């Protein structure tokens, strides 16, 4: 539903500041009397810390303090489960003396200058007892493997966190009887996939400033995705009431899920309290790459069956994911992988197992798509292969098997009534790629070499569709808070303040909040100011993740606007109101069968990829990528298009040039000259964005979450296009030159 502001491409609030270099990021803050902090990393993948001797470091002139395990009142943290020590070393917490990956943190030096702090790191003497380590999650499942964590009791909030030996999380779907379905099948496609991890590579490395504010509150300025959760985790580790801690977000240089868990926040708070001075830290790019979690690397086996006419009979998926050293958000990422790896298809018999397994690799966690990119790749690769084996058009095969709105998904709950976006987006992409349709169904365009192509150039076209949840799921009561204040003396408010704790990680949330507030209040946007994200002045608006922020905060803003307008009309000056929006309830899923109603909203998306392959060199480029995304209602169409283009490019990087390599738990690609993110020179010739607007009944003005959707369908579409060009299905990516040349060689 378009309005005066909703549906309009207003210029971003922060555009000018960012272009002119005036925006202040966490690393830009300085304060009188500020000290610097540096972190000592373990440098070994698995070891027991028998002792830490800081005497020499503390004696170095200019060193103010050295923090070790005994300085952390409650030495544990974790967004889902506190299985990680803040600082590894002896203390009263069982297992906290163990280092479980190479960049586990052992000590932090606070000094007058960064150089002194760095020098002091070299003077800390740590007594390690090295322990055997595991780097492959499949080996961690072997009966003779060592156990990497104590037997945690778990929590009823996250029943999927089973902590069975090295299995951190376990998910299952059981529906029908796959074995007898396979016996009746005309066609079976079996595959083994190896889906890679990925580095977030946001522009702004982790940084921040910790200090005591004028009320004596421990305050941390940093970049995160959920200010109140940062506050809760800091407070937990320091054994403080959350109100004693304050978290402020300035401009944030990207996140993509990589700021969902803590990085520098807890240590900054501890340091500021310890030295009673402002303390600053800025991670180098290398630290940012080696000391933060990544996307999950996944090993999958899939076996799918269909009848001759394309009717799907069964899907069996077995997925083992490398969770790395700590849980982070692995359990929820695996939940989304579970719900996406069978695709949006009507499959009567389903057997799915998804394991998140501890190793001594870098931890794995949230990254745009949150398990859906891996799950979608499995499902859509299987579908494209089935279409080929059946001799059916891939669009036609999908149309015959798509779940209709109102029909159950593999876990039992129904596809929402507003789910037309699956068909609409697939149709839109197929049409742009030149598909035609007659009484026999959809038909791909004839494969034609382009005039002027040299003989070593061949082309392929691929497509994939998908869906993913919007918002936190699995029984969590989704909520978001917003506040408003209207100022002025007369009948018309002269000025409006909007309060929201939303992390603007670069996607333009604050701009969109302002637009929605203007629409809801019926006020000109120029009269509205969005207040900073600061736990001291706002309630919790939840995490900037799961494609949820516009959806959730938009509803909160609407509620707050209604309430504040009522007070204004009653004569309150200034009029103040706040509102907490509660999304429709969801449920946990059954641990044995997967049955449940885990989500309240979905996004729907399709992608088409044109690929041009140099058969001699094994290199390829993308002349054109098409992405159709049902966004419900674009609040700011230009920003939405930016999200689509950014997601497509980020996903193309994941499948092609980005190759995160860990060897024996040590990251090998530690700089941006070895970890190759696509630059503007590498992007597709054309990215065509199609915004489909089937209103989401619960969304503000019909808006639907969309930030992750365009990412999830790209990999399978590229694999499909590469199959046509290279003549082979490549089931492990990134599609490196070596892999492509091997495929070409096998084809010949």
């Amino acid at each position, binding site marked *: 539903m378009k309005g005066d502001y909703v549906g309009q491409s207003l210029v971003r609030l922060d555009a000018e500041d960012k272009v002119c270099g005036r925006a202040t990021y966490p690393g830009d803050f300085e304060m009188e009397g500020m000290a610097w902090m540096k972190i000592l990393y373990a440098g070994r993948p698995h070891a027991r810390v028998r002792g830490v001797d800081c005497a020499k470091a503390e004696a170095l002139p200019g060193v103010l303090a050295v923090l070790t395990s005994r300085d952390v009142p409650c030495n544990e943290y974790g967004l889902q489960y506190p299985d990680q020590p803040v600082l590894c070393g002896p203390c009263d917490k069982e297992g906290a003396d163990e280092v479980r990956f190479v960049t586990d943190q052992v000590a932090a030096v606070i000094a007058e200058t960064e*150089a002194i702090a760095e020098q002091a790191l070299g003077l800390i003497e740590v007594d390690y007892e090295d322990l055997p380590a595991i780097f492959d999650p499949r080996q961690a499942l072997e009966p003779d493997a060592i156990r990497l964590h104590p037997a945690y009791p778990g929590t009823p909030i996250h029943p999927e966190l089973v902590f069975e030996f090295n299995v951190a999380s376990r998910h299952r779907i059981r529906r029908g009887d796959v074995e007898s379905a396979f016996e009746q099948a005309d066609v079976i496609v079996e595959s083994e996939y190896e889906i890679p991890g990925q580095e977030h590579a946001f522009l702004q490395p982790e940084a921040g400033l910790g200090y005591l504010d004028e009320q004596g509150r421990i305050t941390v300025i940093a970049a995160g995705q959920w200010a109140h959760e940062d506050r809760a985790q800091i407070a937990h580790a320091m054994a403080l009431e959350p109100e004693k801690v304050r978290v402020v977000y300035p401009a944030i240089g990207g996140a993509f899920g990589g700021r969902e868990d803590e990085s520098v926040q807890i240590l900054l708070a501890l340091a500021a309290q310890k030295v009673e001075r402002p303390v600053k830290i800025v991670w180098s790019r290398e630290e940012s790459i080696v000391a933060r979690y990544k996307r999950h690397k996944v090993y999958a086996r899939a076996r799918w069956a269909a009848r001759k006419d394309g009717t799907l009979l069964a899907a069996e998926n077995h997925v083992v994911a490398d969770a790395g050293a700590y849980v982070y958000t692995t359990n929820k990422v695996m939940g989304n992988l579970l719900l996406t790896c069978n695709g949006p298809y009507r499959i009567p018999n389903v057997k799915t197992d998804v394991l998140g397994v501890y190793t001594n690799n870098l931890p794995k966690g949230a990254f745009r798509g949150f398990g859906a990119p891996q799950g979608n790749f499995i499902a859509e690769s299987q579908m494209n292969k089935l279409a080929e084996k059946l001799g059916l058009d891939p669009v036609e095969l999908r149309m015959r098997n798509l779940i209709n709105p109102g029909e159950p998904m593999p876990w039992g709950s129904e596809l929402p009534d507003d789910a037309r976006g699956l068909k609409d987006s697939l149709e839109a992409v197929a049409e742009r790629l030149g598909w035609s349709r007659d009484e026999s169904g959809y038909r791909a365009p004839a494969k034609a070499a382009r005039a*002027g192509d*040299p*003989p070593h150039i061949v082309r392929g076209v691929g497509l994939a569709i998908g869906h993913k949840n919007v918002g936190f799921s699995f029984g969590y009561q989704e909520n978001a808070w917003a506040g408003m204040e209207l100022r002025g003396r007369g009948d018309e408010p002269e000025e409006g303040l909007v309060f929201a704790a939303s992390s603007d990680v670069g996607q333009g949330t604050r701009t969109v909040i302002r637009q929605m507030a203007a629409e809801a209040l019926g006020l000109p946007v120029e009269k509205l100011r969005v207040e900073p994200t600061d736990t001291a002045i706002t309630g919790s608006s939840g995490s900037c993740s799961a494609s949820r922020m516009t959806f959730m905060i938009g509803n909160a803003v609407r509620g707050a606007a209604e309430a504040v307008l009522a007070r204004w009309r009653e004569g309150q000056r200034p009029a103040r109101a706040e509102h907490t929006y509660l999304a429709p309830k969801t449920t946990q899923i059954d641990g044995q069968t997967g049955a449940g109603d885990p989500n309240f909203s979905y996004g729907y998306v399709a992608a088409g990829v044109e690929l041009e392959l140099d058969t*001699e*060199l094994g*290199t390829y480029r993308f002349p054109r990528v098409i992405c159709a995304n049902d966004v419900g209602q674009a609040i700011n169409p230009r920003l939405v298009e930016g999200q689509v283009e950014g997601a497509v490019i980020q996903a193309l990087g994941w499948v092609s*040039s980005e190759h995160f390599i860990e060897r024996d738990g040590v990251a090998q690609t530690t700089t941006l000259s*070895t970890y*190759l993110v*696509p*630059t503007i*020179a*590498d992007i597709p010739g054309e990215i065509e964005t199609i915004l489909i607007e089937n209103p989401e009944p619960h969304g503000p003005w019909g808006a639907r979450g969309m930030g992750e959707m365009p990412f999830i369908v790209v990999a399978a579409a590229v694999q499909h296009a590469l199959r046509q060009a290279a003549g082979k299905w490549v089931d492990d990516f990134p599609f490196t*030159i*070596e892999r492509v040349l091997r495929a070409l060689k096998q084809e010949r």
Partner: protein
Amino acid sequence: MIRCEYHCPRALGEALGLKAAVPGARVIAGGTDLMVRLRSRELAPAALISLRRIPELAGVREEQGGARIGAATTFTDLLDDPVVARDYPVLARAAARVGSRQIRNAGTVGGNLANASPCADSALPLLALGARVRLERSGGSRELPLDDFFLGPGATALAEDEILTAVILPPPDIGARALFLKKGRVKMDLAVASVAVLLSMDGPVCRKVRVAAGSVGPVPLRLREVEALLEGAAPTPERTARAAEVAMRCVAPITDVRSTADYRRHIVGVYLRRALESLLGREAA
């Protein structure tokens, strides 16, 4: 933070004087290679002498029918230069493939050569064009063919008191055409391998052929055996294929973080054949 003595002379004579007087001083122009090594503390020179404020080192000018390129000429300057565009377009093509716009705004031809990396993008077309380099010291100067300038990775014929001041190009070879082909892992990247080919025909036979290859040996390589195979012969498809095989045999690549020796060799073969076929008008490169 990098701390060291820094000189910014306004005239060449002053720079040459400093180079002779300050032992361990390093010359800096754009700094796009040097700063990386200073930051990683791989190098810690006693002093830096900047060539950025010396007017006679900047820009291209016609000289004796050919051209003289000042050592501190940036790649952006090369791309904008009418003489280069008219007489040596292959050099512009290579300059366009150096780094990003920001790198091209800072990086210089002299720096690219003096850094003596096997992957130096400007070195290949300059080798194919028969360039010479001018090395000057206080009270003297000499010229060398570019082939003789490179001694090994990071090593050149420059003496301790010398500065590379100019690249001298012979008059353009009428009728010759040249191509530069480069493969990076991504577009803005050092060459995984690169090839420059200059070809001049005399009726059905090759009159003159120059071939250079980058990132496939300790220095940017001239492939003389390939040149000899083609000069005076008709470049039939069989012969260009043979030339590609010889090129692959002549190079000596290594495996490193950016690629493997085998793949680099493979690229040289493919690119050499494509460059020749394209210069002959038989196939798009």
